[in-house]
């Protein structure tokens, strides 16, 4: 993860570096986490930073500043984070001595990001840390606040000189990490981008979509482009259809107000699932250079067949969960959740049929679904291949006139990261009988080493200035362009003929309309 072989240019200058695996070591830096008292910081960001520290992937000189409105001292923040680490990062070995050394670089600043004086305090603090911790003035600002504060923060940082444009390779550098959602729709996304680009160049902006940091998601590129056997089959001639499922048993938890604004379409489909569509659908990049990869992702997303408002109902299904049972527990419906409107029409489930109108994917449907409070927590991509052309085995017991099942390649993203391929084999015995088997690869089985968390990978990449796994502005834009008409159609429908929500019980696989959507193309959702 952290090493690369010295390039030819470097070796020409210094021959002793030939063949050497050189740590991609980050420059010294200070990271400011805005919204440090929130869930993301304690559950994901601090554990990721600490894991990087344990692996010696942080530079020798660094500092981390937590910033939020809650009054707290440095020590209280350190204790709070230490406790959170023990609670939420069970895969990371906690040793008090190591934590104490790490925690010396942790600071806290109570601040209201809308107040210039408070941001001036931040600027002063960063100056002090530059001296004390040798951070060289390189600053990363991690926006982990409510999205509505993003513009205020960017402008505020600029007002005290902390946000400024830098050329590539210029030092000291400021960088900004923006958590999704990147805007609320196309218009707000463009407005946010405009503000950010007023003070940062695009190479300084890291739009984080943690799905891209997952090991299996990165493995899609390797599976497709490092193996010779898949790519020749990876097209409309051999692939029947693609199913992408993101199912969660969890409800909205304590994120009711956020979810009321977002809904499943904005929360999952516009970003995470579109990323998966682009990775499955993209053409091979000309190199592994960040821009070459991102160019291809954008290109395929531009080929998504647009949905005008009139056709939305034929291609997109929405749903909202009602009360039901999850793993034997009675759970409330969405409208009964904390801080959710009892008449809410916000969707907690989306299923859609997409088409990528290009040479490779002509007429291959991509069925994408995402929902909360479904029967099982699972995220996977299933590539269903076309069945064998001649039904040689149609008379065998159990085959029937429909013929054989098709081969399916499944890329499992969570919970058990891995890949499996379903194929037919003869059942041992005197009688010809066909059995379908899965050939499985599981990360946890094949490699005895711990996979880094998505946030570890992404934060480390940002420290190194590598944007490959972050969303570029045009990618965000093209995704919003696709979902905007869906939101507009639903908005109109809410006023004229509101949906009959809830339309699926918690613990089920979503509304009946979802099954009907895929059945209209003569397919069925995989039984997961």
């Amino acid at each position, binding site marked *: 993860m952290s090493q690369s072989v010295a390039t030819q240019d470097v070796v020409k200058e*210094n021959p*002793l570096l030939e063949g*050497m695996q050189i740590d991609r070591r980050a420059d010294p830096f200070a990271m400011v986490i805005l919204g440090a008292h929130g869930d993301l910081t304690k559950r994901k960001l601090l554990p990721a930073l600490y894991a990087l520290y344990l692996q010696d992937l942080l530079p*020798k000189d660094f500092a981390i500043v937590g910033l939020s409105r809650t009054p707290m001292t440095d020590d209280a923040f350190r204790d709070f984070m230490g406790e959170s680490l023990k609670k939420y990062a069970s895969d990371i070995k906690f040793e008090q001595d190591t934590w104490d050394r790490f925690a010396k670089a942790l600071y806290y600043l109570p601040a209201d990001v809308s107040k210039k004086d408070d941001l001036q305090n931040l600027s002063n603090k960063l100056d002090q840390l530059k001296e004390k911790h040798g951070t060289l003035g390189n600053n990363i600002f991690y926006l982990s606040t409510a999205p509505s504060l993003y513009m205020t923060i960017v402008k505020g940082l600029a007002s005290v000189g902390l946000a400024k444009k830098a050329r590539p390779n210029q030092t000291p550098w400021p960088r900004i990490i923006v958590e999704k959602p990147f805007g609320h729709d196309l218009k707000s996304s463009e407005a946010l981008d405009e503000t950010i680009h007023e003070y940062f160049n695009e190479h300084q902006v890291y739009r984080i979509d943690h799905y891209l940091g997952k090991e299996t998601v990165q493995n899609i590129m390797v599976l497709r482009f490092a193996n010779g056997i898949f790519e020749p089959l990876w097209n409309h001639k051999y692939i029947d259809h693609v199913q992408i499922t993101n199912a969660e048993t969890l409800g909205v938890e304590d994120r009711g107000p956020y979810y009321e604004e977002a809904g499943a379409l904005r929360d999952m489909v516009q970003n995470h699932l579109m990323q998966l569509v682009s990775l499955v659908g993209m053409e091979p990049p000309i190199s592994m250079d960040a821009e070459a990869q991102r160019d291809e992702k954008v290109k395929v997303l531009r080929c998504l067949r647009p949905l005008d408002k009139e056709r939305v109902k034929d291609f997109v299904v929405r749903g909202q969960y009602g009360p039901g049972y999850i793993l034997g527990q009675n759970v409330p419906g969405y409208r009964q959740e904390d801080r959710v409107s009892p008449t809410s029409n916000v969707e907690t489930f989306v299923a859609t049929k997409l088409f990528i109108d290009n040479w490779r994917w002509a007429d291959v449907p991509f069925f994408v679904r995402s929902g909360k409070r479904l029967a099982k927590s699972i995220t996977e991509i299933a590539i269903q291949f076309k069945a064998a052309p001649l039904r040689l085995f149609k008379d065998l017991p159990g085959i029937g006139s429909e013929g054989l099942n098709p081969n399916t390649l499944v890329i499992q993203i969570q919970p058990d990261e891995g890949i499996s391929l379903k194929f037919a084999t003869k059942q041992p015995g005197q009688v010809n009988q066909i059995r379908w088997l899965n050939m499985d690869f599981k990360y*946890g*089985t*094949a490699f*005895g080493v711990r996979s880094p968390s998505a946030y570890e990978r992404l934060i480390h990449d940002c420290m190194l200035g590598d944007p490959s796994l972050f969303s570029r502005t045009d990618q965000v834009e093209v995704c919003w362009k696709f979902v905007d008409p869906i939101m507009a159609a639903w908005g109109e429908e809410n006023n004229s003929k509101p949906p009959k929500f809830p339309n699926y019980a918690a613990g089920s696989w979503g509304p009946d309309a979802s099954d009907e959507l895929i059945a209209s193309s003569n397919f069925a959702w995989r039984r997961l």
Partner: protein
Amino acid sequence: MSTQTTTREQPAGGSTEQFLSGKLAQVDIKKIEKELKELWRSAAQTDGGVASVTRACVMNLILYSEDQDTEQSASDLLDDIMLRHPCRAILALSTKSSGNPSLEAWVAARCHLTDSKSMKQICCEQITVRGDNVNNDELSSVVLPLVISDLPLFMWWRAAPLSHEKLKPFLGWIDRMIVDSSCDRDSLQFFSELLNIMNGQAQVQSVAHEIPFSCIDLNWRRSVSWRESVALAFDQRHSALSPDYLAGINNVEISYGLPDDEKNGEASWKGLTNQALLIVGWISSTLGWRLQKAAADKQRVDLSFDSSGSKISVSLVGVPSDQAGEGDIGSILIRSERPEKVSIVATQHKGMPGIGVTCYRGDQADRNQSGQANCTSLFELDEVAESRLIDKELEIPGVEPIFKRAVVSAVEILKLLQSSGKS
């Protein structure tokens, strides 16, 4: 005299529980695969309180040893290695005794839990084949058919001396060979033999193998951090010195550790300087230095190189074991006189967390560690535990031409030392 092979009647050696627990169960030498299959089949069917078992294998690893007592330590090492690199591990023991020639085999599963919640066990298998008073043609005829097809084969040669002749029966099958010069006191014989293997096998493999054959010395891996610290000392992104100083190098001093019980001056440089010689071989071959003179005396080796008319002196100096482990590097001092006088000192003492690199300019360059440092940095020292070194080798397969160049240079130095009559 014909070789005795152990044969037994069914059932397969030991119980399934014994097999899964990692205890070696003796099996019929002619039916190793069959008995393994039977054990796995019964393990897969075991349920009702016993954790379910998944087999994993991404490579073959043969560990070759001639030491009868190596079995336990090798088993422990394999256990550790298989946790990170699921493989079929074959411990090939070639021993000598006063008895009749014999061949015996044992099998055991090496399992670890994937997580405490699911209680699922991931298992690999270890096969031990012991050939007593048999030659390697016989031993390899049992060992090589056990290699799982289409998976890379790594062979770890854990015997001294390194012998091309003994290796021959295995060589055509191996993708990557791992040796360790720290175990061999006859430096010239070791590196010459290594070079023979690399040169000979390079020709064979270019015709027969898809994966290029490669060979690596664990001592080369041990020196990674030292080589990195030297290389990066001349890299302005990491240090205050530019690569321009490389052309001005006029002196190199490398200290190596003497054995614990021989610090009174009894130890010879032979064998103990293998790691240091690889570093000298690496620097000299990379920077295009030509060897001029070589002399050795007890614990010191003095070499003289020429580079575009400039003379470079290189010394290898033994230091007591409290400054460096036996045969390990204790420090590297490099002096350069162009564009200005500088010196670089990379040091590591026992108990230090890494290699500290300090550079001095101008007058301070001569005083080395006494003056004010102009630049300092700390490089993490790679773990040197044997299983971790093997881990690295299994992680980064591939031909290392730089290593081969270093070996060629080391052989050249050793030959000159021999011909100077003082080796």
